């Protein structure tokens, strides 16, 4: 019986490869988009502009306070009604970008705030303008506390991309879901899907730990 199921699983191998490609595309695009979004909002949040701060805080809270499943539903079912027709692919990438952006915003803002105030003052005293202060003094120091959670966030993003399968996108989770309707061996099918995610996410988690050991600047060294 197991060999019979195994053969049917082999038959669906091409669709699994397709699914992997869709997952890679969606996670890759929203990873880039989310990083940019998070970097910009994170940096802006540390500036003393009340309105901007308030808006970004609302954005971060709403995204972090609601399940991603609801967010993808809103993007896929509601935005078209309000005159913003998004295909499933666009809705997936847009919602994942906003989702990752909010979390990365927190990470970036936290990293910047962890740099001692004196560094800002010293940079300003050296005659740097705001952009130079940020780029030459603050960000290089903040990187140590940004990189480890940032890579961790990428893992979360890749894992959450499995949820886009509910709006019919043929990602690897959706392929598994369709396969299990024909091959009723849930342990085998989703075991395989799980292994695929594991192969990507586990090395990233190790990378995050490695960054943590290497880059975290302890303030006791001074």
């Amino acid at each position, binding site marked *: 019986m197991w060999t019979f199921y195994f053969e049917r699983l082999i038959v669906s191998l091409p669709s699994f490869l397709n699914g992997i490609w869709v997952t890679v595309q969606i996670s890759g695009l929203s990873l880039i988009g989310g990083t940019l979004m998070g970097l910009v909002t994170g940096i802006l949040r540390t500036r003393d502009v009340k309105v901007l701060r308030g808006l970004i805080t609302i954005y971060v*809270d*709403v995204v*972090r*306070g*609601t*399940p*991603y*499943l*609801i967010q993808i*539903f*809103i993007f896929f*079912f*509601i935005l078209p*009604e*309000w005159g913003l027709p998004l295909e499933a692919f666009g809705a997936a990438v847009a919602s994942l970008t906003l989702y990752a952006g909010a979390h990365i915003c927190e990470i970036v803002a936290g990293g910047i705030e962890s740099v001692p105030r004196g560094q800002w003052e010293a940079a300003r005293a050296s005659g740097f303008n705001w952009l130079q202060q940020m780029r030459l003094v603050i960000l290089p120091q903040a990187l140590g506390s940004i990189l480890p959670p940032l890579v961790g966030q990428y*893992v979360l993003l*890749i*894992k*959450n*991309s*499995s*949820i886009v*399968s*509910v709006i019919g996108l043929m990602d690897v*989770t959706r392929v*598994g*879901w369709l396969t*299990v309707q024909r091959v*009723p*061996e*849930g*342990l085998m*099918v*989703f*075991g395989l*899907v*799980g292994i695929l*995610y*594991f192969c990507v*996410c*586990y090395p990233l*988690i190790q990378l995050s730990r490695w960054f943590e050991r290497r880059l975290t600047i302890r303030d006791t060294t001074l």
Partner: protein
Amino acid sequence: MLSTFNFRVITDYLPLFLQGLRATLWISAMAMSGAFMIGVPACICRLSRVRLLSAPAAAYIDVVRSTPLLVQLYFFYFGLPSLGLRLTEQHIGIMVLSLNSGAYIAEIIRAGILSVHPGQVDASIACGLNLFQRMRYIILPQAIGETIPPLLGQAVVLVKDSALLSLISVFELTRAGQIMASERFMPAEGFFTTAACYLLLYYILKSFSGWWRHRLAAQKAL
């Protein structure tokens, strides 16, 4: 946009949402206690010097953290019947959420225990305390306070993750939103009400976490 938003319908469906809110709270509470029952032993095993204990615990934690919750959910939902196990959808959901959160809780508690200064441990060994006494009098009292904010963070994640149970037709908040959206063809009203309910839970947990952090900081300042 808002002019077409039908507030009347929401009041009609309020009982359904309250029921969904109750179900979400119940599921989250059950899963959170299940996660503790898995996470605390897993953490103790992980910290053990006996490899026969620490290796399986580490493997469990890594596998859970490297695969999407949705895939874990499908793995058990489609897989258990082929093992001859028949559980209700709600029980499967609570089990998977417990297994998932258990791994994160194990890591949180481990970080809390490791955050206790090594000198404290050395001193307590020098005082002749055995392992149990060291845990009870020296390590845990210091570690517990530190772990409360991340544990509340994990509770937020758990409440949001429980939305995925709607995909295996467990009745909870998200399911309530879906029912309303499909019965009245009003996805906006349905999903925004659901989102508002989750936001409410998020702000309650977040403010409690903030209050606790404040307390911790005040304690340290003393």
